């Protein structure tokens, strides 16, 4: 890996042809058709200059796929990939650019119904940038709630700005903070984001628009990298795949849970907690976030565990990439390794919690079969490709996995989950889980 920072360049293809000159740095092109993100393209240094003809070559399959996805709804099958074939008739008759123009031209809604909840912990500068991006939304949300999860309330000053409700939740844990936020939220749509994220100006509008479909209980969106300056940031985004990678909308429902159930439903493919939203009514039905999970507790996966509950209850999660945020990835290797360790530990904890709650044994099978196979395969690839840095990241994941295993051996921890299952139907469950 070379150490030169990468340039992230947004290109709206609807604005006409672009010839990209070489400037000595590798590029990540983020391709758009007006307000629709249609794909990304990574270019090594000498792959530039990049001609308009090459841009057309690379963009054509993305544009076609986008137009087809915006014509008929797609449902996630195994791996979260769509299971419906595109269809020859559609491919032959579809006016791809016309269809995209029509979708992009639909007027965006207001965002008064939306409460935005930002959970933060000791990252004042990044939080300020996040709040700035909220203040410059094309449609301001009805409410902004910042939940400060730091011990000393370090975010209080930054939140002293108009239109921001500040809450202090000193008990550590992202799930606790999120539950505190949703208790204070008034809107009938609740969006969550994190302090290390900057929101695209149309974010609130696109989140609200995604709920136009009344069957949708939860929405997730696209997470782009804010910067690719360091090898660690690029390793996370490009080699590990980042948070989300698809650029077309896709519906996740109980069928998705069914097809992936034998090996542990792959609910993490639904999206990322840094860019998610819910109808308020789902929390009344299903309770709040599981406070045993998430950053500050088990590590992560409180988001995907909640999507799991939605799907298990017959609900629908919609991934809508038009809702775009840009995430600041960890800039140093140590931070990334710590993050991956926490992710894997949290992932295993969530698998245990899901198995306990629903009796779905596939979750346990994933811990003992899929994950070790994944580690072995990635280790082989890293050795074959002489990627020492990949092996070190992998080791962090293996350690996280081992930490996650300890949750299997904690009967009291697991009992809390089982208890919350039986009461999940009552709105009081949130509070009970919190105080258990």
């Amino acid at each position, binding site marked *: 890996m070379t150490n030169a920072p990468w340039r992230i360049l947004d290109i709206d293809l609807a604005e006409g042809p672009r010839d990209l000159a070489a400037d000595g740095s590798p590029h990540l092109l983020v391709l758009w058709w007006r307000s629709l993100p249609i794909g990304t393209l990574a270019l*090594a240094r000498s792959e530039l200059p990049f001609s308009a003809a090459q841009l057309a070559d690379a963009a054509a399959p993305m544009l076609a796929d986008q137009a087809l996805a915006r014509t008929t709804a797609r449902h996630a099958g195994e791996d979260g990939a769509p299971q419906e074939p595109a269809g020859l008739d559609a491919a032959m008759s579809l006016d791809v650019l016309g269809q995209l123009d029509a979708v992009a031209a639909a007027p965006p809604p207001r965002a008064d119904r939306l409460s935005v909840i930002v959970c933060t912990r000791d990252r004042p500068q990044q939080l300020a940038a996040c709040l700035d991006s909220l203040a410059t939304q094309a449609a301001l949300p009805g409410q902004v709630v910042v939940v400060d999860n730091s011990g000393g309330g370090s975010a209080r000053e930054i939140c002293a700005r108009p239109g921001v409700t500040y809450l202090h939740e000193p008990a550590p844990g992202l799930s606790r903070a999120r539950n505190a936020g949703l208790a204070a939220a008034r809107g009938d749509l609740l969006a969550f984001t994190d302090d290390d994220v900057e929101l695209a100006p149309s974010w609130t509008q696109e989140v609200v628009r995604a709920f136009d479909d009344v069957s949708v209980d939860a929405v997730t969106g696209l997470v782009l990298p804010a910067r690719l300056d360091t090898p660690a940031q690029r390793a996370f985004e490009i080699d590990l795949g980042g948070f989300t990678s698809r650029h077309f909308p896709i519906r996740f429902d109980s069928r998705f849970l069914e097809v992936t159930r034998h090996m542990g439903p792959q609910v993490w493919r639904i999206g990322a907690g840094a860019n998610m939203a819910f109808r308020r009514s789902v929390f009344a039905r299903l309770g709040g976030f599981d406070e045993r999970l998430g950053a500050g507790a088990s590590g992560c996966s409180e988001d995907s565990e909640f999507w799991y509950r939605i799907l298990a209850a017959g609900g629908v999660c919609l991934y809508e990439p038009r809702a775009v945020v840009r995430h600041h990835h960890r800039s140093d290797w140590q931070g990334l390794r710590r993050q991956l360790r926490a992710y894997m530990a949290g992932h295993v904890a969530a698998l245990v919690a899901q198995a306990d709650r629903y009796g779905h044994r596939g979750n346990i099978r994933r811990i003992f079969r899929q994950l070790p196979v994944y580690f072995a395969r990635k280790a082989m690839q890293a050795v074959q490709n002489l990627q020492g840095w990949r092996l070190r990241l992998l080791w962090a994941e293996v350690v996280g996995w081992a930490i996650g295993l300890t949750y299997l051996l904690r009967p009291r921890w697991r009992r809390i989950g089982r208890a919350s299952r039986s009461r999940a139907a009552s709105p009081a469950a949130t509070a009970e889980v919190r105080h258990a």
Partner: protein
Amino acid sequence: MAYRLVQLELSQPIPAIPLAPEEDGVGLVARHEGRLVGFRMLPRPAGEGLSAEAVRAVCDAEFALPLAAIRARQTLADRWDLAPASPAPSLSIAICTKDRAARLARLLRSLEAVRGGSSFAGLEILVVDNAPSDESTREAVEAFPDVRYLREPKAGLDFARNAALAAATGDLLAFLDDDVVVDAGWLGGLLRARRACPNAGGFTGLVLPFRLDTEAQVAFESRGGFGRGFMPFEFRTERHGHALHPVGAGVLGAGCNMCFDRRLLLSLGGFDEALDTGAPLPGGGDLDIFYRVLRAGRTMRYEPAYAVYHEHRETLPQLTRQYWTWGLGFMAFLEKARRTDPELRPRHAAMLWWWMFDRLGAIGRSALKGRGQALGFAWAEFKGGLQGMVGEYDRSRRRVQRIREQAA
């Protein structure tokens, strides 16, 4: 074992595909209004054809998205006004052959069929008869007007290619092997590639199977064949996500269908005659020239419409030998690159490691799964590679030097 090769026009009603009792699969070449859209191998129980509905389902799943992409590419090019007004270049087409007059005539007929509609500023066809054992090739060429016949007495494909380079006059010089025939869109595809990238150093194109009548041909195509996909792509000295590029130059295409800026080839000194010598070192010459074009700072463009149909090896021993030549040719090329291009030595070393790992993995997997045929192919390629590693390039250079001296 035999597959029926079917050309399917997607803009027409989709037909059923019946199979004869000895046929146990379909190779489906899909087009839309003549343009190539995709290719798919479909194994079937012997004699059980596909209903129109079944063919339709395959088309929905496999060809709808590529077709929509091709249409989107066209619309975008129109909207962006990408059709450039650059003057058309002249083209020389060189066919190097040895004692295969019937196949050569088949290729020349396919060229006759497309050259009439050519938009190139000039077009010449050269046949290089490489150390022939009789006059059959000359006689075959005489049946075609406007085809130049050359003789290269020094045996070796790259001697013949260099003879063509010395005699050719076009701005572009395209090479075809005698075991292909060209697709109807071959010339137009090459011109389109050149117009999309006027300063490219070279072009490669799609290689589809000419027939799938034997077990070996089906096996080769099922393992991927020469297929490089149906979307154009440009290669430079680096490629994102491929740390070893351009050392694995095989992804660019195959020597049976390639074209270069003739002046660039001259400035590079032509092909390396120690590669592609026929036995005992067949192969490696195309990898070497792709690599050198890229390392000269020039782009190579892959264009699917610039397509040929290749007659794959007919028997399993021939096919096994082909995999052996791949291993051998690749390692000879790697050794040469290591010597002549010190700047990229870390990549050459990493490629050697990667290749050993990859091939041993293939051997291990096919052995574990009890796949004897795949094991045979993997082993042949590995063995060829080992042979290539232990001095084959030097031995070949000495042999070629003797051939030069004998001729002088």
